């Protein structure tokens, strides 16, 4: 049996939105240490890696590992019903192929979500030593992405000379965004080497959905290698995205 209580149901709502932005179906693994999920988008260009440890919950019971396969559209629709000041209870009995989702506020509302028996594709995350690690306000990154979207579908991200540069160009024009330490918008930057790579804006903007969970984004990347984008939740846990790069056309 698995039973977990979150003090704020909207945390779970945001987590579900951060996953469903990329993934249609996926398997949460609940075990005595907490809940996690790792899944790839249908095109296998991006990956989401979520974990919410036991300590993030108000109460948490799970004796042994339990897979919880869900359709994220269905779960998202249930979580849209989350109200302000409502607690969330998640409950699954050993034999039931259903997850009980209960909102506790002025009333108690219980949804029962049929679970999916999805095959076990054990995914490992890309193992990369990142040359650049940049910490910045999620809103600043969001703005840079939105700027780039005005002119292109792809964005070049460059870290050099203690600066983060976000540039894009296309038929619709060109844009360059510079984020420096002086402006206070660059919280920290660690460079082993200068690095630059091209990424799909479609995916990046999908990933920014998770900025509802964290004010700070941590961006890691290397030249022509996948990007990693971390959002750490205030009460523990995190959403990590990986995004494969795009090669520049010759």
């Amino acid at each position, binding site marked *: 049996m698995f039973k977990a209580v979150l003090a704020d149901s909207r945390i779970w709502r945001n987590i579900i939105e951060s996953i469903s932005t990329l993934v*249609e179906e996926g398997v949460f693994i609940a075990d005595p240490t907490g809940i996690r999920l790792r899944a*790839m*988008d*249908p*095109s*296998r*260009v*991006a*990956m989401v890696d979520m974990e919410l440890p036991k300590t993030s919950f108000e109460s948490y019971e799970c004796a042994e590992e339990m897979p919880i396969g869900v359709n994220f559209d269905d779960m998202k629709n249930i979580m849209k019903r989350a109200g302000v000041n409502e607690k969330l209870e998640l409950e699954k009995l050993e034999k039931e192929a259903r997850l009980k989702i209960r909102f506790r506020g002025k009333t108690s509302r219980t949804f029962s979500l049929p679970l999916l028996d999805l*095959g*076990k*594709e*054990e*995914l*490992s*995350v*890309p*193992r*990369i030593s990142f040359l650049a690690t940049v910490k910045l306000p999620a809103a600043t990154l969001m703005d840079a992405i939105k700027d780039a979207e005005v002119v292109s579908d792809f964005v070049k991200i460059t870290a050099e000379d203690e600066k983060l540069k976000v540039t894009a160009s296309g038929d619709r024009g060109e844009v360059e965004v510079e984020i420096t330490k002086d402006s206070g918008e660059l919280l920290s930057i660690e460079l082993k080497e200068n690095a630059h790579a091209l990424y*799909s804006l*479609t995916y990046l903007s999908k990933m920014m959905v998770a900025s509802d969970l964290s004010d700070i984004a941590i961006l890691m990347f290397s030249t022509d*290698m*996948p990007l990693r984008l971390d959002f750490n939740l205030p009460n523990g846990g995190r959403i990590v995205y*990986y995004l*494969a*790069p*795009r*090669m*520049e*056309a010759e």
Partner: protein
Amino acid sequence: MKDRYAHIIPESTKVKVVSREASLCLLCRGGRRLCGKSVCPIDLKARAFVKNLNVVDKKEFVGSSPPSVFVGRFGYPKVFVGPMVPPMLGNTEIMDLPERWMGESVEDIVSYRYSLIRGKVLVPIESARTGGRLIETLQELAMGASAADTEVQFLKVPFGSIIIDDNSQPFGPSAPMKHFEVASLKVDHRIEKAYYDGDLRAGDAVMDLYTNGAPVSKIQRAFSMGIFGTLKNRRLVPTRWSITAVDSVISQRLIEEIKDYETVDKYLVFVHAYMHNNFAAIFIPRKWSFEWMEAWFPGTFWNPSSSLPSVIGDYESYWGRTTYPDIGGCYFATRLAVTEFLRGIRRQATVLVIREILPEFPLPLGVWFVRENVRSMLRSKPAVFEDLRSALKYIKKFMRVPIVKWAERSFILKDSLLQRRIDDYVRRVDLL
């Protein structure tokens, strides 16, 4: 959209088409009057085809409707609606059954269409629901299983030559109609059943009929007469729109179905040539996404002025699309042919379909031409490849436009060649 092409609309009244991404004609296809002329100059060219056909000079006649109806789009939500009847009796079914037109010459197809005289009565689209004697007769006609003997009286002698539309099959002369009567009619019971079910949603009705083997053109005809849908939502749908609606609805449902299947395991390539058109399709072993591209050669219908083939296309990702494709209804006709093939083999894939329209191709004939050609192509045996480069190399031999030209424009090709995958950076361990 408007802004994007604003620069190609000249300030002076002298119309000159300057193409950036594609020519104005390719975007307009006679439907939007983008060049500002009141009559599409390319339409005029089409009229040459009918100059040798006999003109109907009678205000009334009896004839067997294939069966066929037409709903106009100008003036929406008040539209011209009416039957299409040739001045002859007999089995005229083929005149409005594009599924059977593969193998027929352009001249034959044009003469079928030119023989069908179109009656016109102006009605509000809601009349599909509110009824009236004429609408009910036309709805019954649209449900017809075979040609029906009818009698038609016009207010004037039918007038007009041929209307070329990229979406719908060509249409011939028309006249305001005074009276219309159907002598005898055998209705298609599958369609009739949907008609009497006022709770059945239009999408479900369309899908039921399709699953039961009804030809797309019959479903579309009934759809245009507002025969389907929950009772309060029924309305007339312009013929041109109904064709796209039916292709779109059916293929959307098929997409939802095929997304549950495994991906194809190799690269499949199909090629097909018909009536100065070359087609090719690549099925890529990845989850569903779709792209449809056309290259209109200089001198073809919608590319009269440029000196290079104009390549245009539209695309959808796994998550689908929310806007109408610029390239038009042929996008959905192709998507239908592709998804029904994938359902047949119980697989999903990323699919690129390309078409070249050579200068000798005389006349756009409607999206059925694309649908039936792609269907026919997908009935042939595919060439199978291990990787994309070999697949493209093979296609190169069949197409005139160089692969790099397609790749420059193709979302799917660029994505396949340039976009890396997470798999490239992880070791995947499949347990069981």
